[in-house]
């Protein structure tokens, strides 16, 4: 075992002594081969293979009750059915997995498709022009995919927190295990940095969750059966390239001219996050909100360079991931375009960075 992992194990073992709610079957003694969440859910969807206790959230309100709550795989949820429970938690991505077709009833699949169509927008397959760091363009061909209409909210993220996901290392990439224990809120409990006592700030249920690092965003996306979008996908969804008019992307979801009334940037004067469904006039034609403004959003891509001149090379002190879209305190509107290249440290938990999720169309079962 690597030295850092053994140290981490020792640290977590000490912590476990004070955490009676931590599942007893998670051991860091030897990182064993993990089947992945999709396989795990396939197993759960098969009768007789349910497993561990968890702490999910109060449905609908998302407010913490302070009491242990029911997880998706809690035996008490059997009356609702596993698939329906997953759908009620916005985890319909698992129900719609092509591999799960044989285990999901058609009614459940229809309900999952309905949930998906309510919360996500389809971006058809096609080509998108990407600018390279030397200023030239290259065309990227994309599969069709779905993108969340809105950034993930505090209310949605609270389900993830209350499910005990911060204690379930299976959904975290192995390289971040030593850091997961530090992903705490103001009171030292697992959760986004700006929260306290495991609860989001009052009145901000529908605001985008912020104060989460790239790994927390990835873990949430995995937990709901989705993934983070790529920069090319973001550009295609927000830039809305039309092949009949040259195939170039718009700078903003509504066009090429900046209009402060359509978004929440520094120029709009709001100075803080707003609910994710505000600024409908700034949405894309297929109803994706706030692809410009309110909060920066994590992308899947690493930040490897920014536009450089000949003979210049980009370096960073730590691994960076791309973020996009601009936030309430973004000073230059030109930094909030669908093409702007910037990034943030993977472990940084800033008050102006959130995320939304994507799903590849080809991984989903057809509508029954």
């Amino acid at each position: 075992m690597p030295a850092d992992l053994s140290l981490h194990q020792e640290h977590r073992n000490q912590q476990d002594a004070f955490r009676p709610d931590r599942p007893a079957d998670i051991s860091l003694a030897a990182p064993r081969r993990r089947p992945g969440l999709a396989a795990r859910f396939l197993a759960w969807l098969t009768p007789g293979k349910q497993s561990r206790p968890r702490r999910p959230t109060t449905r609908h309100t998302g407010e913490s009750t302070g009491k242990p709550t029911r997880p998706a795989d809690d035996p008490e949820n059997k009356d609702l059915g596993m698939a329906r429970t997953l759908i009620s938690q916005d985890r319909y991505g698992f129900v719609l997995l092509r591999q799960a077709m044989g285990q999901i009833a058609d009614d459940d699949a229809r309900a999952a498709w309905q949930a998906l169509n309510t919360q996500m927008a389809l971006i058809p397959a096609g080509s998108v022009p990407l600018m390279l760091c030397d200023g030239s363009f290259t065309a990227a061909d994309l599969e069709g995919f779905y993108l969340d209409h809105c950034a993930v909210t505090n209310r949605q993220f609270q389900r993830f927190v209350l499910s005990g996901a911060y204690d379930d290392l299976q959904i975290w990439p192995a390289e971040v295990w030593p850091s997961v224990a530090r992903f705490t809120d103001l009171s030292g409990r697992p959760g986004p940095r700006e929260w306290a006592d495991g609860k989001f700030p009052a009145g901000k249920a529908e605001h985008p969750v912020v104060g989460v690092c790239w790994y927390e965003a990835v873990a949430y996306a995995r937990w709901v059966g989705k993934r983070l979008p790529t920069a090319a996908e973001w550009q295609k969804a927000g830039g809305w390239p039309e092949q009949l008019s040259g195939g170039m992307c718009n700078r903003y979801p509504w066009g090429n001219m900046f209009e402060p009334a359509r978004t929440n940037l520094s120029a709009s004067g709001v100075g803080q996050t707003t609910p994710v469904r505000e600024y409908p006039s700034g949405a894309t034609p297929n109803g994706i909100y706030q692809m410009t403004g309110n909060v920066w959003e994590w992308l899947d891509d690493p930040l490897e360079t920014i536009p450089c001149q000949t003979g210049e090379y980009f370096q960073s002190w730590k691994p960076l991931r791309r973020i996009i879209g601009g936030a309430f305190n973004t000073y230059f509107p030109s930094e909030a375009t669908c093409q702007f290249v910037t990034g943030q440290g993977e472990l940084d938990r800033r008050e102006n960075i959130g995320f939304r999720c994507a799903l590849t169309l080809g991984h989903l079962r057809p509508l029954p």
Partner: protein
Amino acid sequence: MSRSPLLSEYNRQRSDYACPLCGGHTYEGEPCGSCFLPFKVMESIRSRPHPPRFVVVLGPTGVGKTVYLGMLLDLLSRGVGGLQGLSRSPYSLTLHRNLILALQRQRFPEKTPLETDRWNWLHCEILGPRGKGAADIVTPDVAGEAVMSEMENPGTNKTIRALISRCAGMVVLVDLVEVVADGQSQELFAMQLISYLDALRPGRKKSRKLEVPVAVVFTKADLFEEWISDPELFARGNVSSLHAQCQARLEQCSFYCSGVAGSSAKLVDDSGQESLVPLRVEPRGIVEPFAWMVSKLG
């Protein structure tokens, strides 16, 4: 006999106005012979009904004086923080323009040249919250080396000396990264500046503190994961000698943190030279020290 087209020591046209910074004699079209205040600045000051307040923004090389001043100008021009700044002459916009053009290319501006006559000056009319004129502010973007040189050998840079001896307020910039990384050099430099300010204001009773308002601003705070919510507490714990000196010698002193880039990285060129680059612009803590100082100017 025709008049010589060349001006000499004997036929230069002497101005009717004294230098607004040092009070020395001036000649039309020329910088002040004593403190080297540029003629364009004197001309701009003469066009105003009231004499301006000189404010200095000082700190060592690389601390971020140009970025701080340029960003301040941009924010003031947008009326951020309850203050509106109106540039009183075109040269004031040079610094502003250079910074914004650089930041938009995800770069920081070039280093300020050492030569006094190549410094950018700004002359800005500051309007208060109700649109009333609060003050005219004049300040140069000085080279850090010139400040260092004046600290080490007082009198070698007459502009810096004149500014420190006549300024109505001082902003002392301290590089937060260096404070955290390698200890005392930034702190000692700031202490030198305050001592020098004190030394150039003689005539006070021994027990009286210096009345010039001094804002100590920790720059590059954006490079840290957590924003420092209480800069004075930070100062007390991390630059304790500077904090104690401010308490002992200054009547009005306040501590701030500032940052311009939301995130930074570096570029390396073929020769191995490294330069810091801003990955995006999210200014914070820029106007606050200035607004505090303007409020103290009366």
